[in-house]
């Protein structure tokens, strides 16, 4: 019974990780990755590893989506600029 919260966190991680793999559009994938970061941090907390969870929160909830979205933004803008020339 005491492990119920661990089971819940593991199920959430499994569901969101599967969704992150299944998403085809990079923008939607960034959104799912951000949620996955938060859920992973909760799993680490439940498993009594708060320091790992702290770094996971910092990296997973804001930095990874920011990097992904900036990359998508740049690629799209370059595609738009060079598109008519082709």
């Amino acid at each position, binding site marked *: 019974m005491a492990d119920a919260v661990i089971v819940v966190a593991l199920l*959430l991680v499994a569901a969101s990780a599967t969704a992150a793999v299944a998403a085809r559009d990079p923008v939607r994938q960034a959104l799912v990755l951000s949620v996955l970061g938060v859920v992973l941090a909760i799993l680490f907390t439940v498993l009594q590893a708060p320091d790992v969870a702290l770094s996971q929160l910092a990296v997973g909830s804001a930095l990874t989506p920011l990097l992904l979205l900036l990359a998508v933004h740049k690629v799209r803008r370059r595609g738009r600029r060079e598109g008519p020339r082709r």
Partner: protein
Amino acid sequence: MNGWILAAAVILAGGVGATVWGVATGPLRRRVVAQNLCTAFACPALLLLSQGYDRPSYVDLALVLALLGPVGTLVFARLLADELADDPPSAWGLTYAAAAVGALVVPAVCVAAGPSRAMAKLLFVGVLLIGGNVVASRALSGGFPEARHG
């Protein structure tokens, strides 16, 4: 298993589970709202876990999440402004529901902590959580039009 951890498990299964479902399916505007609500539900769960495990240092996790979650949502609101401009996602009912969960959990944890420095920290986390959540929702629903063409 005490009541605090049970309450955290219920919030995780109900709130965060619903946001995982919302972020995995549906149109883009629904996914952005679900990503915003994920923070709002996970932060009270972390506070309850900290109380349930009797480790006051775990409150730092909730503090970092309350600080960085709205920042992540603002990143999405800024960089996806073109996609979201036609049909701005506004889910004020859900936002206030998530804020109500936070407003219920924070006083409960405060009462358990008793009047001390820890209680001031918990109140700070609560204010940061609810304020950040409302600001992020307002940004998503197009409340800051001047930021769009910055």
